[in-house]
């Protein structure tokens, strides 16, 4: 009877320790990253296809390219030596109502070259291939050399170096159906960014 009881306790202890070891990696990264990522739209926070083509008629397709002025720009400010994972949840259509919908394909690019303006950042932007919805990159990329040692965790009296990366949104609207109803077609692009966990 005593023998059976001892075996049970040992087994439970082993399971708990196993769980603690697996999650220990999350503790070390999750605690010091804190909530210091700031995602800020630089323009009105609107990707407006009429900025590229003021009059959009049925049968037409409008494409905003990375180099166009109509691109929507956001900044990502955070720890320069940390990787961030960016996820974009974009609609497949812009909608006037439930029956009037027009396809849209949202693309995005990022720039982590350490540029101080969106103009210079755009020149070095990296386009994420169509169809991808998530990308991981450091806030500021290395120019050369081996990877740096793990970053020093933030603590009282110390905060690591910060940097700014840029995000560019663009894409293609249409083809507008021939019988499309006139009106303002809209949709929301949700963007999430967080420090990467490995």
């Amino acid at each position, binding site marked *: 009877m005593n023998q059976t009881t001892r075996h049970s306790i040992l087994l439970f202890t082993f399971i708990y320790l196993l769980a*603690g070891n697996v999650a220990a990696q999350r503790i070390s990264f999750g605690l010091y990253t804190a909530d210091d*990522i700031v995602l800020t739209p630089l323009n009105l926070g*609107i*990707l*407006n296809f009429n900025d590229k083509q003021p009059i959009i008629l*049925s049968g037409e397709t409008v494409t905003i390219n990375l180099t166009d002025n109509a691109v929507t720009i956001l900044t990502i400010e955070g720890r320069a030596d940390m990787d961030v994972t960016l996820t974009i949840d974009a609609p497949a259509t812009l909608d006037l109502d439930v029956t009037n919908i027009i396809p849209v394909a949202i693309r995005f690019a990022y720039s982590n070259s350490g540029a101080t303006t969106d103009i210079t950042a755009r020149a070095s932007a990296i386009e994420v291939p169509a169809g991808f919805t998530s990308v991981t990159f450091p806030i500021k990329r290395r120019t050369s050399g081996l990877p740096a040692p793990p970053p020093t965790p933030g603590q009282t009296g110390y905060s690591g170096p910060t940097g700014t990366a840029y995000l560019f949104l663009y894409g293609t609207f249409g083809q507008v159906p021939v019988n499309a109803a*006139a*009106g303002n077609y*809209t949709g929301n692009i949700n963007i*999430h960014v967080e420090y990467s966990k490995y």
Partner: protein
Amino acid sequence: MKILKHIRCLFILLLVHTSMMLSAQNKTSVSIKAQATVIDRSGIELITLKNMDIDLSMARDGKIYVSALHDAQAAFMMVKGRANARFRIKYAPEVYITNSTGNGTLLLKYEMYGYPSDNQGAGEPIDATEKILQMSNESKYYFWIGGRIDISNARPGNYDGEFTIEIEYM
């Protein structure tokens, strides 16, 4: 001793859970609005079915009034477009009509009524400032145009003028 181990393991589990909650807050989200305004390619056709007829016999105390709602002399127009489409309308509320001999002008102040079918008496008043209307199932909308004119100082002759109206899909 075994109880102490249990407590320590539970503490680790609690710490793991807490750290996962903390990391869940470490995330920034922004919503960007994507939009495009599409304009209808199909045109709107404006057809004048009848001009406004005014003659001196209608004058009272030197003034003529043609009711857009009741008078047969009112001008009659029809808009053809897309069925049930909403459209925006505005028009110039007054116009100077000119004597065909070039001798003087008169100020004509318009009034306008509209209805989705050919029923003058059922029309609704339409202000000169912008108004939003809707085509009928038959892709039509009808307008009747009347007006007021002071002819007390008018020289004899024929007077001609235009009615300026703007219509566009919404």
